[in-house]
């Protein structure tokens, strides 16, 4: 089936909206409560809200970081200081009613049932989620007039995904929940590199997503970077893309109070033919050393602006991200038109072409570091091939 492209929006949400409106790069946005204050969400045009998904971001219910403090239904505020022992009995219902009413009144596309972030593979994961959020939210949704599509938010960790028994329990739980139309799935990977280079993690995420889809569930894959191209093989309903790195990879530390401000990253440009973001400082080497290197840079109106001599490159310039949205959404739209084996063949061809481009760079004496090179692609190919073998698409 075709999938939608959503923008995982952070505090630069206006860039996402502009990109969708001006360049047709997506079907809607996911609004993160930590980044956008409540009043501003309510003031967004109805046409934006109707296609949007609101992410309450209750991951750490005791930490109302950033704009979360403007939402009176955030657990810490609704309960006058979140404490997990009392919350389920005393405040969960109040918080759920407020959050559901907010989502319904603003006419978002789905009603999201939030999740509490739990590291590792806790034995009480399902019980905790049920008591804190799932049961109270389902009750609050049922008390609203009309039909509302409920999405269960789920943050799966590396460890959870890699344990067959644990994922089987999760699938049983989710598919047994009455009134839940689908899952807003966020997979947290422990790696420190900017791209996911763990074939096993990607393969298991593909399998988990497909299992949900085979149970007729809507699956929104949140916080994706370029691996959206690969994960499209699992027939998701929605894939996402974002502006800054914190919207392209889920890291719980960014929701913690003591998260230290990091130095701004070097500006990097998404190069669709390489399936990689490549640091601006390497562009000169690519242009000069690689025969035909200039052709690796995708041409669009934002590229034209960025490659003017007067352009001041900085990671906070919107052109970098609007360029990324134009190019990645173009790739994703083409993939979305295809299904099954044909989709796999197309994705495989894109990955193989990117690998060839990195090989050419290497042969031309361009030495990229591990956050800019093509070292993620072999892992993607392995994951894709394994998944395709399972589906009988390899022949």
């Amino acid at each position, binding site marked *: 089936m075709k999938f939608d492209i959503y923008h995982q929006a952070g505090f630069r949400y206006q860039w996402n909206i502009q990109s969708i409106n001006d360049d047709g790069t997506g079907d809607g946005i996911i609004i993160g409560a930590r980044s956008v204050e409540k009043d501003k969400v309510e003031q967004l045009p109805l046409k934006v809200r109707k296609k949007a998904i609101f992410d309450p971001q209750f991951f750490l219910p005791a930490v109302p970081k950033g704009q979360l403090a403007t939402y009176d239904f955030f657990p810490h505020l609704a309960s006058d200081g979140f404490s997990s022992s009392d919350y389920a009995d005393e405040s969960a219902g109040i918080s759920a009613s407020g959050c559901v009413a907010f989502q319904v009144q603003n006419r978002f596309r789905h009603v999201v049932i939030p999740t509490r972030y739990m590291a590792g593979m806790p034995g009480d994961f399902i019980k905790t989620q049920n008591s804190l959020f799932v049961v109270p939210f389902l009750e609050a949704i049922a008390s609203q007039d009309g039909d509302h599509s409920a999405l269960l938010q789920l943050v799966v960790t590396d460890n959870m995904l890699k344990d067959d028994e644990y994922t089987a329990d999760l699938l049983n739980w989710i598919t047994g929940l009455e009134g839940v139309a689908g899952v807003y799935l966020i997979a947290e990977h422990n790696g420190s590199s900017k791209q996911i280079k763990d074939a096993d993690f990607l393969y298991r995420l593909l399998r988990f997503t497909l299992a949900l889809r085979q149970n007729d569930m809507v699956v929104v894959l949140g916080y994706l970077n370029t691996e959206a191209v690969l994960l499209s093989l699992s027939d998701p309903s929605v894939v996402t893309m974002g502006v800054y790195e914190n919207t392209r990879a889920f890291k719980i530390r960014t929701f913690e109070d003591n998260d230290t401000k990091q130095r701004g990253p*070097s500006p990097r440009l998404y190069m669709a033919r390489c399936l990689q973001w490549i*640091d601006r*400082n*390497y*562009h*000169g*080497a690519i242009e*000069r050393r690689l025969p035909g290197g200039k052709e690796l840079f995708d041409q669009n109106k934002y590229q034209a602006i960025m490659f003017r001599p007067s352009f001041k490159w900085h990671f906070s310039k919107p052109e970098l991200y609007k360029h990324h949205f134009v190019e990645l959404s173009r790739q994703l739209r083409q993939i979305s038109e295809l299904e099954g084996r044909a989709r796999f063949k197309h994705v495989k061809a894109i990955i193989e072409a990117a690998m060839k481009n990195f090989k050419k760079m290497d*042969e*031309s*004496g*361009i*030495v*990229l*570091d*591990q956050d800019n090179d093509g070292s993620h692609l072999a892992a993607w190919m392995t994951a894709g091939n394994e998944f395709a073998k399972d589906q009988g698409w390899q022949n």
Partner: protein
Amino acid sequence: MSFASEQQLVDRAIEHLPIRQWLKMPDDATLFQRTEVQGLFGVPDLLAVHAPSEQMKRRRILPSIAFEMKLSDWRRGLAQAFRYRSFATFSFLVLDNTRAKSAVANTDRFKRANIGLIGINVDGSFEVYVWPEKESPFSARLHAALAEIVRNETDAAN
């Protein structure tokens, strides 16, 4: 005998590598030499620049050598040294010579990347396995940033 720390390797390189000679500098010319220079692309362990005299200030490209120094892990070192080519005319990876065997077996990669490879010993003797060709920096903007650093620091010193 191997180096006990990377700092020891850096100190020995500063002491023994004939940088002025490599930059073809006259005896009276000013050598700008700094360790751990920030604000460019990567942080070279040592950066040496032929600082321009008053008459040479308009010179378009400053002759410069950036060094990455590593006890081991030549692949990472090569990638770091390659970054420095964005602003310097030469870039070298300097390794502990007792652990340079694997890098020396891959000199073709250094040659292809036009990055120099040096193995240095604890007694200060060294071998140049790959000598790079002089090549203008890949980024005019970063070279200008380097020139600015040199100008500011040499002006402040005068």
